[in-house]
């Protein structure tokens, strides 16, 4: 063995220490000190009203207990309408969002689209991803008025940013050879997309779409807070009136629907892959 000269006897009797994660000791201690200083500063400025928190514990207990006896009945009309509206917004926005995001994804894939289109589509994606649903909803409510239309547009817009980005990445990383083989056969651009690209990205498109439906439903639950339709308004009212049992009922419904969607998406994703 050609081990470099290393005299083990110099090590015997000396304590051993694990080499530190950050080699430079100044940087290591600096980072640690900075982090602790930040935590202290953050804690000092948070300004917790402990008396108020203590008072709140009782209400917190009531809320937890409300989960054992959720009240679906006394506001069943509001809950039904709100849930239906949430679901309608989810379905409509998912369909439109997915349909629109496919051409945008093609435009945002560098190996499919020419540069000007690429830049425009990437720009749309960047804006959609940077603005959060709730802010978009506020603006759209201001423009289109209260109601589910604003919520529907918000969710469609958010779906485009999410789906186009991931799909475009998938298209960019697809197998070039398969796509080139189709091109070599003299196919037109649309035929090329249909035969060379689509089969490769379809499983991922389906998986992502179902995941996005799940997200859209969860997001639809908060749009009501700013007047963009859905169950959020009912939930907000329930909290304002301290009707914890109704709130618990709504939350349970949301959780159950999300669980069901996750279950379905698991099955579908297993089938398409």
């Amino acid at each position, binding site marked *: *063995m050609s*081990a*470099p000269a*290393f005299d*083990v006897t110099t*090590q*015997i*009797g*000396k*304590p*051993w*220490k*694990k*080499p530190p994660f950050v080699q430079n000791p100044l940087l290591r201690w600096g980072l640690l000190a900075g982090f602790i200083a930040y935590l202290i500063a953050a804690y000092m400025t948070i300004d917790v009203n402990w008396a108020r928190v203590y008072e709140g514990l009782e209400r917190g207990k009531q809320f937890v207990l409300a989960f054992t006896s959720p009240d679906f009945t006394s506001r069943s009309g509001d809950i039904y309408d709100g849930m239906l509206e949430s679901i309608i917004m989810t379905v409509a926005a998912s369909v439109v969002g997915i349909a629109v995001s496919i051409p945008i994804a093609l435009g945002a894939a560098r190996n499919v689209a020419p540069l000007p289109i690429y830049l425009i589509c990437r720009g749309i994606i960047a804006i959609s991803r940077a603005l959060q649903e709730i802010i978009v909803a506020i603006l759209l409510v201001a423009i289109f008025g209260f109601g589910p239309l604003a919520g529907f547009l918000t969710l469609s817009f958010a779906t485009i940013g999410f789906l186009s980005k991931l799909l475009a990445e998938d298209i960019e990383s697809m197998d070039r050879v398969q796509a080139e083989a189709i091109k070599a056969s003299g196919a037109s651009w649309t035929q090329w997309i249909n035969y060379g690209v689509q089969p490769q990205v379809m499983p991922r498109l389906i998986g992502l779409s179902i995941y996005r439906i799940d997200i859209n439903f969860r997001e639809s639950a908060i749009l009501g807070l700013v007047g963009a339709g859905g169950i959020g308004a009912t939930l907000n009212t329930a909290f304002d009136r301290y009707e914890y049992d109704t709130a618990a009922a709504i939350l349970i419904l949301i959780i159950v629907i999300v669980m069901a969607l996750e279950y379905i998406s698991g099955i579908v994703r297993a089938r398409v892959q």
Partner: protein
Amino acid sequence: MLRLDKLVKTYKTGDQALKAVELEVPEGQVLALIGPSGAGKSTLIRCINRLVEPTSGKVQLGDVELTTLSSSGLRRERRRIGMIFQEYALVERLTVMENVLSGRLGYVGFWRSFLRRFPQSDVDEAFRLLDRVGLAHMADKRADELSGGQRQRVGICRALIQNPALLLVDEPTASLDPKTSRQIMRLICELCKERGLAAIINIHDVALAQMFVQRVIGLRFGAVVYDGPPDGLTPDKLTEIYGEEDWEATIEAIGDDEDEEVAAQ
């Protein structure tokens, strides 16, 4: 020193991996366990330190019956049984030193081990062992930076620092090239001799086994079909263990290998 008595392992699927295996290993003996894949070699050695729970039978190490031990008693006995793995099984994101010292985990408390404050004697012993296998200068390297042969040496150190009475070796050369395989086998056998350790070496390379051990056990379908010296492995015996195949070439190859070995030295 080690005695297996009617050891049976039946998996949940109904597969009988071991059928009443009887085996006695005296102090300081190195033996090779050969047999086709699925013969139960791996299950057999894992039943000894109960990484796999035997279905019935006894495992006697010294005066202690292992199969009936409580979990804390089992941990104490596991310290006396070193194990070396096929894919090295080093914790890849820890340093070489931490991997070696992990062999002492059974001897130190949780917080000491968590803070890496092992007793000085353990650290010294780790350095001596690493030096013995030629890796002392690598102590602070991360395990995933090492080559296969180097990793297996670290694995050997981890087993030896336990100060075991028995070594269980599971296919030590399966992922190594032929030259490194031979070096590793030689190292294991030398270390066993130096320390008077008994060892069960689970190996699929018959030639390699014949080269280094005093006793060979042949396993087929979970039962012992051969137990004897390595030169007693005639083509007939090998056929009994592995099934029909032309064995002359294998046996001849051993001869050639040995010549080469001598020439090389």
